[in-house]
């Protein structure tokens, strides 16, 4: 077989090829990463499993005798908290694969030699990981709608869940990418991220939450997941106003700002090949 490479002809569209970094390089990366995430089946499988879990919880809260004692507001709160927890978990896991996974699959170097900046690559990957949270939230909407009928909190619950969940997802997604950038192997990165999630979610799984007292209050407020869920509860269950317990959002906000800022600052140093990777 003879392979022929044609030189670029004068007057063909090749002449007008832009060879500068696209204005929205991050958007191109985000688009492709999201497509890979969803068309590969990873995202859809996780979402399917989540919808089964959510269906089970919704069914139980509606029909089970013991859980039926929950007020409607509490049922909505439970489902929203579950959505935030699972959505943030999958966002973290997907972002933990973002850089270390590309390194292991040998696809990172090809990306590094394009004109797209390393910050744009990171931004694109973070946005793609956040689509997991957005999809999780979309799946949750009908369940919240069913549970919130008659108590007039549907709009408030959805807005609250979306805002708080997005804030936590940005923070933990950024942490996931930071972990992925510094880890030598993908397994280490994903394992470290799951361990982090375990630490953050453990207090929320205690039968009656953390014990009372100033120490545990500080502990709750220091945990971005626990404090975000506490904020949702205070509004949906206790009927507080949005501004009354804003202090609960300090940690999620700080986490998103610091982790996001660290990504912006350290991005160019994180998106790199590890020494000795296939170096000959």
């Amino acid at each position, binding site marked *: *077989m*003879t*392979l*022929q*490479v*044609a*030189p*670029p002809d004068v007057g063909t*569209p*090749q002449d*007008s*090829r*832009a*060879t*500068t*970094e*696209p204005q929205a*390089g991050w958007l*191109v*990366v985000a688009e*492709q990463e999201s497509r*890979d995430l969803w*068309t*590969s089946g990873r995202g859809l499988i996780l979402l399917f499993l989540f919808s089964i879990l959510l269906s089970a919880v919704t069914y139980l809260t509606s029909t089970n005798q013991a859980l039926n004692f929950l007020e409607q507001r509490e049922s909505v709160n439970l489902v929203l908290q579950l959505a935030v927890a699972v959505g943030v978990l999958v966002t973290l896991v997907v972002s933990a694969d973002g850089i270390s996974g590309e390194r292991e*699959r*040998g*696809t990172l*170097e*090809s*990306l*590094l*030699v*394009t*004109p*797209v*900046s390393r910050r744009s690559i990171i931004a694109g990957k973070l946005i793609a990981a956040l689509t997991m949270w957005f999809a999780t939230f979309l799946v949750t909407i009908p369940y919240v709608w069913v549970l919130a009928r008659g108590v007039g909190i549907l709009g408030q619950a959805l807005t609250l869940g979306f805002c708080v969940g997005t804030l936590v997802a940005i923070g933990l997604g950024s942490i996931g990418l930071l972990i992925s950038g510094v880890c030598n192997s993908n397994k280490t990165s994903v394992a470290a991220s799951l361990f982090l999630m375990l630490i953050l979610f453990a207090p929320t799984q205690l039968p009656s939450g953390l014990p009372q007292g100033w120490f545990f209050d500080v502990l709750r407020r220091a945990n971005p997941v626990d404090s975000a869920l506490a904020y949702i509860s205070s509004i949906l269950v206790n009927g507080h106003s949005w501004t009354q317990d804003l202090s609960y959002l300090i940690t999620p906000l700080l986490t998103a700002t610091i982790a996001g800022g660290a990504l912006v600052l350290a991005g160019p140093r994180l998106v*790199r*090949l590890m*020494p*000795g990777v*296939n*170096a*000959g």
Partner: protein
Amino acid sequence: MTSTTVEAARLTKHYGSRSAVENVSFTASQGEIVGLLGPNGAGKTTTIRLLTTVLVPTSGDFSIAGHPSTSPGEIRRCVGVLPESSGYPAYQTGGEYLRFFARLYGLSRSQARSLAAELLATVGLEGRAGSPISTYSRGMRQRLGIARALINDPVVVFLDEPTLGLDPAGQAQVLDLIRTIAKSRAATVVLSTHLLPEVEEVCSKVVILHHGRVAGAGSVGEVIKTALIEQSATLRVPLDRVERARNVLAGFPNLTVDQVAEQPDVVSLSIDGAGTDAGSSDVMNAALAAITAAGIPVLHFELEGARLSDAFFKMTSEAVA
């Protein structure tokens, strides 16, 4: 007039106390194919990563197409790279893959689509544009990688082991493609490979690396000459003409002729105490000419010590000064 497109000056890369590349210098011009040779761990991949801005040199300097190393963005716009053991997203099709990279270089969706189709045809994959990359053979993946390296119409194309793991037919296809890239696109090709005979055939210049240093550089002839390899040859003639051939060769005073054991129709020729210089080559040429002039049919004649592989093995088996 061809211009210098790659200029590396005393490039050095250290990982802690370990030196991956030390004072590597060479140049390449437009349309030239430069073979970057060396044993595993010699620093070929590191050199390519330095020149493509993936790694930052510890010291030294380089320029690509006139852009200094201080402008990595400019350099990335004018180079195409096929990394060693490049991975491919299994779920993407060949067309999607190229369209994605085309868009990373700022092309619109429609431009990216037409360019991807054009490049897939260029590398002979037009019939598989819609197939997932996971269904491609290794050779097809390498050709897809080369297509991706051409997506920005680069001034310099870096190909790191493009024939690794390919069968002879696949190697021939890739080498043919490389030759055409340099000729038709007037691009400089920096080729890292272990296929020495092919390098000898394709490359106009070679750089031999050993322990991160340049052990030899220049045209193939210059490198062989630098290696100063003792030259010898084997000559095979019809069995009934062996004695006559020995008599003819006896007329060359500095040529030693020996019978090869268990091969009565083959004699070995060696030049006494000479290296590979113009004089010794002349002696071999003259000896061969004398044999043919005497009407002795030459069934086989092979010059040893005059091939790139001989120079390569000599240079990489010795400590670099």
